[in-house]
């Protein structure tokens, strides 16, 4: 069976058709992460981010957020989708990643840089995210992540 294609919904504004919002629903399969990241990043060309931050920070942060939502939020359940909504503002890019899971408490994630955790294969996602973007916040339930990359 051919896997479903990812489809972006893009909202534009003004006579030049500048992209202001991008929406994407991603099946809960980690194999989609790379393609989803490229689709979104390519549409962010009007975003007020340097080429370097667009190439590295935005892509890595979105890959982290999607992987967490698919694996820990939706627990790889093929019937569930992860929803991505990107707002391209004049002074920032705001990314929302929402899953159908029960959420989690980010305060309970252990520090991956202490010696006893350094050789663990997993557990660096949230730590890396916090260093890549200017703001990381969750809704109360913990299943909706909001990332902000400010202009620059």
């Amino acid at each position, binding site marked *: 069976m051919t896997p479903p294609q990812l489809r972006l919904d893009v909202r534009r504004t003004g006579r030049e058709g500048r992209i202001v919002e991008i929406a994407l629903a991603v099946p809960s399969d980690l194999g989609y*992460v*790379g393609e989803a990241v490229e689709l979104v990043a390519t549409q962010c060309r009007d975003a007020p981010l340097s080429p370097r931050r667009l190439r590295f920070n935005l892509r*890595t942060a979105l890959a982290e957020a999607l992987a967490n939502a698919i694996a820990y939020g939706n627990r790889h359940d093929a019937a569930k989708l992860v929803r991505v909504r990107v707002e391209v503002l004049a002074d920032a890019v705001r990314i929302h990643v929402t899953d159908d899971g029960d959420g989690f408490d980010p305060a309970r994630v252990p520090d991956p840089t202490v010696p006893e955790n350094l050789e663990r*294969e997993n557990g660096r996602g949230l730590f*890396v995210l916090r*260093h890549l973007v200017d703001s990381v916040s969750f809704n109360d339930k913990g299943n909706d992540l909001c990332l902000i990359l400010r202009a620059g």
Partner: protein
Amino acid sequence: MSFSVKKDQRGGTGAGGVVVVGVDGQLIVGNRQELKQKVLDALESGAKKFVIDFTRTGYIDSSGLGVLVSLSKKIREQGGDLRLAGLNEDLQTLFELTKLDTLFSILKTPEEAVAAF
């Protein structure tokens, strides 16, 4: 995104050579198993010296970092060594902030990494 595997015989011929794996594009949750399998296959065939070359890599997520940690452990258990090379400034920063720069031997270029064995 793909991986290239080549054998550099400067460190010795046959199993004594250095396996250089190039990461083209990104190393993330969706392709990390492919890299892991390529390295484990070479390890199984007797290779002991490995360089992972990130010269052509755009980004690495935490799953990619995790697979490198896991491979490094497996290679060390077999008496081998894994080195990393070609990290750009952003990737170098990623290793530093996660303190993984203390776990890996990181060289500037793949040529330097091969020569250092």
